């Protein structure tokens, strides 16, 4: 077994900016090829198509969290387990990828408004459990950075129903699992790049090439273009 995250760091200069590249690489479990899928194509679904450019809240450094990575299976019956998440970053520090979930027993007996606070995150300034602003700072559930071996069995239809149930304040049949990307940046802003979600399906290694762009807005010209 190998570790799923092996940080590397390099530096580059881009448009006058010192851009810090940090990479966690999934080296996988030796041997065998890895099939790369666009999100929506393989057995595991996570991440969307598009992106979010998060406005800087004022004050630096600042921390932001990106969601939109609800996990689901479009291959019912297949055994799917997470291996790791690999990525590069541009001017981001304190990066972590967390799995957010909850137990159904946590929700039973709660009021609908309380249940709805377990719903999946889109994005927020801050990091769990201390999100900043509005309802997000009360988002409930558990967060772990230990992704290795996490099983994903919920079908995408069921995941959508569970998400609707929780959003509507009802206890779902199954809990939703979703990934949260957390990072800190300074006045220049930064972004995630080349994100891959690595998993195993029925013993075969595969990965999703993420197509959801995550940007933390700042004054760097390349970043600013994405925020206007």
């Amino acid at each position: 077994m190998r570790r799923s995250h092996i940080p590397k760091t390099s530096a580059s200069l881009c448009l006058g900016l010192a851009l810090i590249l940090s990479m966690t690489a999934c080296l996988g479990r030796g041997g065998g090829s890895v099939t790369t899928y666009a999100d929506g194509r393989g057995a595991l679904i996570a991440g969307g198509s598009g992106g979010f450019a998060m406005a800087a809240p004022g004050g630096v450094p600042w921390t932001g969290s990106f969601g939109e990575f609800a996990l689901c299976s479009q291959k019912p019956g297949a055994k799917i387990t997470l291996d790791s998440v690999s990525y590069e970053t541009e001017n981001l520090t304190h990066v972590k990828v967390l799995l957010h979930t909850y137990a159904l027993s946590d929700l039973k007996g709660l009021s609908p408004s309380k249940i709805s606070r377990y719903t999946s995150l889109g994005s927020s300034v801050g990091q769990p459990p201390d999100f900043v602003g509005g309802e997000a700072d009360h988002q409930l559930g558990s967060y772990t950075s230990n992704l290795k071996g996490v099983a994903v069995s919920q079908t995408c239809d069921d995941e959508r129903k569970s998400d609707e149930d929780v959003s509507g304040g009802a206890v779902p049949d199954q809990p939703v699992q979703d990934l949260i990307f957390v990072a800190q940046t300074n006045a220049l802003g930064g972004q995630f790049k080349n994100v891959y979600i690595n998993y195993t399906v029925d013993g075969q290694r595969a990965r999703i090439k993420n197509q959801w762009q995550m940007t933390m807005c700042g004054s760097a010209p390349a970043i600013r273009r994405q925020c206007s």
Partner: protein
Amino acid sequence: MRNNCAFTVSTIAAALALTVAAPGVATTPSQRPARPAPTGAAPVALTGRVAGVSDLRPSDIEVHVNPTSATAARVQPGVALASWRVPAGSIVTRQGSYEVHLAATSVPRANISPEGLVNFEVIARDPHGSRYGVTMSSARLVRDAAGAPRWTQPLAATSTTAGRAGLSTWPTLPTLPRAAVAPRPVVADVSALHSGAVPSSKFARRSCSPGDVGAGDVYGTTKTVWATIGTSYPINGDQSWMTHQIGSRTDFSSSFGIGTQIGDGRFYETGSRSVDKGAGFVWAKRPYMRSYRVSVTYRKVAQYFDRCPGNGLGPYDVYWTPITLSGGHIQHRQGLSRPHWKNCRRESAGIFSRYLSNGKSYEQGEGVKIFGLISVNLSSTRAYNAEAKLNYVLSRAAYMCGNNADPAHAGKVMESRTRLR
């Protein structure tokens, strides 16, 4: 406020009279001989069901590849164009379903657009009665990572064109992105069979005297109508906008419904045709709900099958099919109401963008505003991709809600103050 429903901009439509009653107005391109039937190993290009039939036989199904949209746009009114009939041995039926097994290289090159689009028409006859129905759909030919031609969905994500890969008589084709897998055949259901005279084979009659006017598909007038390809629902003074830009050859892809007058004389939606390209446009940022519309040129086609124009019987059916995006863009604000979608995500202040094509496509059941012409509106479908983006500026934290999936995958996305229940 301006109601642009069924607004037409075609200036040539009135001048293009359907002249099917006039003999000898044009010659008919000869029908190409059917190539040898492919083997059973040929991939499935098209599949579907025929409504109300449980014992379909291959002889009940006739499949044609119609001319490309470029050809359909060029032909003069009154001209009959031949289609290419898919060999009968390519059709397999099971209960009420059919499959068309077709080697991509069997399709004549002239019937493949530069973007790989192939326009199928399926004619289904009731094995037990005097009824028939039609449906149409585009499929896209692409090259996979090994360079082999494959059938896939017309709105599937593709990359820019690749080399000919040894197929010297073929057009270049777009390629599947490296990360894409398992192209899926197009599903084209025949949703209804209609009573009345049932035509024999589409080109049972090769020509009509006098004047050697061929029976078959006689092309008529054109009409340009508006079609919705996106909607946005900002709140709190936040702004949204859509970009529709032209990049690679296949990046902007839409499908629009085909309306066919068949059976009782009314028009029914009978499948769709996909079109690529068109002029680019970026809508301005605006703080109100609106729909985004593009102009689409439709063409009238009369199907004579074994009849001759001018013999008094007229065509068996007439359909209006989209052939091109004509370059017009407008916004529309009337008739929109705030939806109640429940797949919501809390977002911080910033810019939410929906693009790329790994989620749901934008679909609008009555997106093509053609009611004024055929008394029914038709559907529109547009893929999200790098050239067709929907964006919201969130000035403060808000919810983004999707209609049929989470907002990052949904076909339609709205902004909301609260999570909807």
